[in-house]
């Protein structure tokens, strides 16, 4: 066993490291071809990570990305493709922001206010993804289509609600429009990060909690077992007594509830209002990170941080005249090469395992031994 685990650790590391090296190589080539100095670029990016602020911001991005990735991963684990995390978190953040900013909330104790906001966001996210789940189990509508459609519908709905006649307030002189700002009591204070001008989102704790809960749910609960079983083989799960329709609905609701959280760190920790410039597209980033982290709670955490760090260090590139899109290319190449590497390693491991099984069972005997 010791030998095997050592081997599997080695193999486990081989994939991501190999892939990273490969991705760097590809980007280096692209940079060289286009007349840039790959090493200078790398130095700039790594150098900017020495700034505490960049690290803090990377952590903050990672927090949001991680939540988004978990939301996506819950679906992935049972082969549900929730492309709708994007719409779910935007609608959830908008409505939760409206609630949190509402004047009647001012009188409530801070903890209750924050809790209500977060619960409201989870509820909205769950309802929005629940529509897709409901249509899937009752009408067999592919969740891929329905969530794409629901993303666009959410956009229209948010635009409709983000109107001074409805949930938005306008600020004189501003060209922005958003929900009423959340006052101090409704905000989640940041965690000071030494040397950085920006704090780390207080809700990074929430992300950690969600990650642990996700891990626990998958590995320690019956529900998680059913979820994984359904993902691995729907027919076997059905035969084992899993009600797949209920599972689809439940996991869509769960995925949506987590999606509802995606906007919270930013909303309660920084923006304090849902306005036109509230970050969009985090749902899609979540897909990439879930894939990169292989739906694994720890894997996704690393992936989220890597992603956040790449995003945050890209600003420095423009200053030295390198198009920062090189970072986006790098992200794409990393996803692809990590996965290729994992696939190669997986095949290799499978071969090793079969060989082990074979050896243990003595099926590798030579014909002479057989005839004997």
């Amino acid at each position, binding site marked *: 066993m010791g030998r095997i685990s050592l081997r599997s650790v080695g193999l486990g590391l081989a994939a991501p490291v190999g892939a990273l090296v490969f991705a760097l190589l590809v980007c280096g080539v692209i940079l060289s071809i286009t007349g840039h100095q790959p090493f200078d670029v790398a130095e700039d990016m790594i150098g900017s990570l020495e700034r505490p602020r960049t690290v803090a911001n990377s952590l903050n991005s990672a927090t949001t990305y991680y939540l988004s990735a978990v939301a996506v991963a819950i679906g992935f684990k049972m082969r549900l493709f929730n492309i709708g995390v994007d719409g779910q978190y935007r609608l959830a953040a908008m409505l939760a922001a409206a609630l949190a900013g509402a004047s009647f909330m001012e009188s409530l104790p801070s903890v209750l206010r924050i809790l209500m906001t977060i619960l409201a966001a989870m509820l909205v996210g769950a309802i929005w993804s629940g529509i897709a789940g409901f249509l899937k189990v009752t009408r067999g509508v592919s969740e891929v289509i329905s969530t794409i459609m629901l993303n666009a519908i959410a956009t229209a709905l948010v635009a409709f609600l983000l109107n001074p006649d409805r949930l938005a307030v306008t600020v004189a002189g501003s060209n922005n429009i958003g929900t009423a700002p959340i006052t101090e009591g409704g905000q989640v204070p940041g965690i000071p990060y030494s040397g950085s001008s920006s704090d780390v989102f207080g809700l990074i704790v929430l992300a950690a909690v969600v990650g642990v809960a996700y891990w626990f749910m998958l590995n320690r609960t019956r529900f998680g077992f059913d979820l994984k079983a359904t993902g691995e083989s729907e027919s076997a799960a*059905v035969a*084992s007594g899993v009600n797949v329709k209920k599972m689809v609905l439940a996991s869509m609701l769960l995925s949506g509830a987590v999606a509802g959280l995606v906007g919270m760190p930013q909303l309660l920790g920084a923006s304090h209002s849902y306005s036109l410039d509230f970050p969009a597209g985090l749902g899609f980033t979540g897909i990439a990170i879930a894939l990169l982290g292989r739906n694994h709670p720890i894997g996704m955490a690393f992936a989220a941080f890597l992603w956040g760090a790449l995003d945050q260090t890209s600003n420095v590139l423009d200053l030295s005249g390198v198009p920062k899109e090189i970072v986006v290319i790098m992200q794409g190449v990393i996803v692809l090469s990590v996965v290729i590497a994992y696939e190669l390693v997986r095949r290799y491991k499978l071969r090793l395992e079969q060989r082990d*099984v074979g050896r243990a069972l003595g099926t590798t005997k030579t*014909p002479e031994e057989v*005839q004997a």
Partner: protein
Amino acid sequence: MSSSESALAVELRGITKRFPGVVANADVNVAVRTGTVHALVGENGAGKSTLMKILYGMQRPDEGTISIDGTQGDFHTPADAIAVGIGMVHQHFMLADNLTVLENVVLGDEPRGGGGIDFKAARAKIKDISARYGLGVDPDRLVDELGVGERQRVEILKVLFRGARILILDEPTAVLVPQEVDELFGNLRELKAEGLTILFISHKLDEVLSVADDITVMRRGTTVASVAPGDVTARQLAELMVGSALPVPELRESTVTDTPVLEAEGLTVTSPDGRTVLEGMSVTINAGEVLGIAGVEGNGQAELVEALMGIRPLQAGRIALRGEDITKLSTRKRRDAGIGYIPEDRHRQGVLLEATLWENRILGHQTKAPSVRGLLLNRSGARADTQRIVDEYDVRTPNIDVLAGSLSGGNQQKLIVGREMSGNPVLLIASHPTRGVDVGAQAAIWEQIRKARAEQLAVLLISADLDELIGMSDSLAVILRGRLVASYDPKAVTPEELGSAMTGAGDGEES
């Protein structure tokens, strides 16, 4: 050996093929005379299919040579083998369900005309071949709609369509009833008469002895004997195959009681397209009784089983388990009430190939100790019990943390049987419990069923293996087009009688 008397159609020399962990073929030598039926026998995993795939260019041998009609060949793909006139019907059907028979047949060798496929010519040719060999295949039907027998004939048509002179048939009779087998053999003799060479794999030794001109026996990846059918008995052949005597399916004294465990009445199931696939079926099984259901595949067995398990909705009917109505209960509740389930297709319904053995132990028992505690999994409980099953049922595995997919089919099956027997079920629904399982495992599974029956378990046994059915059942029923058409006393019935009842030709008697 008479191989020197006529030209050799196929000569395999020193074929060796290694897979990770397994030497599938080790220095195999086979010589097949032109214009003969040559049978290849051997237990599961002996390397028969692998050898045939090598001959057909689907796999490359690590060592050895292949000669066709005296000329040495080097096959990289099936296309190379097809080019020299080899055709193969695979153990598992190689058909695309969503394509028509015609499309499946012409695939890869399409008659061209007018910038596309010449459908007219293809249709004519298929009808012609179909008529000539009495295959009765309609080129325009979707393969999805065909039964196993028809699929088998489409497979043969595919080969004939390409004008193959050497036919490989890998276990063509496994899914056929005796009458269909006879028809097939009729076809084979006709083909042989036309000078074709046939390589034929089967586990059914009587068949082998009746149809083959030569027999090659394989064991553990190598050829251990070449015999003529006249020189051996089935028993001798079996001993050559396994190196020991064959186990026989049989029950000892009757344990049947009059306490009904399963009472199903008027079960009616319709398929999604509105056909009635199960029509007012009633089944009763008492404690300690094994009810065997015989039937050609696709006559409603799968639907019956799935209806009993609550996987398929009922249009009408009532199911009671030990007197309690379970008609409206979910699959999970039914399992909780004490139904064990050995599915016919273990990869589809029985195991999670990418999960470990102990996780597979939990599957189907997600609500019961020792694998769970409340809403949480009990990992140590599940692991301990998995170890127990591995030991008791002789599941050959290095440990319980390997993925189920890396076990052989037989060992997977033993794990499933062990799992379904745990938790003391009152009713066991066993669909083809020994399908594709080698003799050792077969004997073990039969023994477990006997043991449980002695402890008052009720068993619904569905099998395509008529010997198993006759040997293991306390009573026997025949299913045809969604109805039970006849009942037999297993002690008094022959496989032939059963076979004709299964095809609708026989006259079953009430018993």
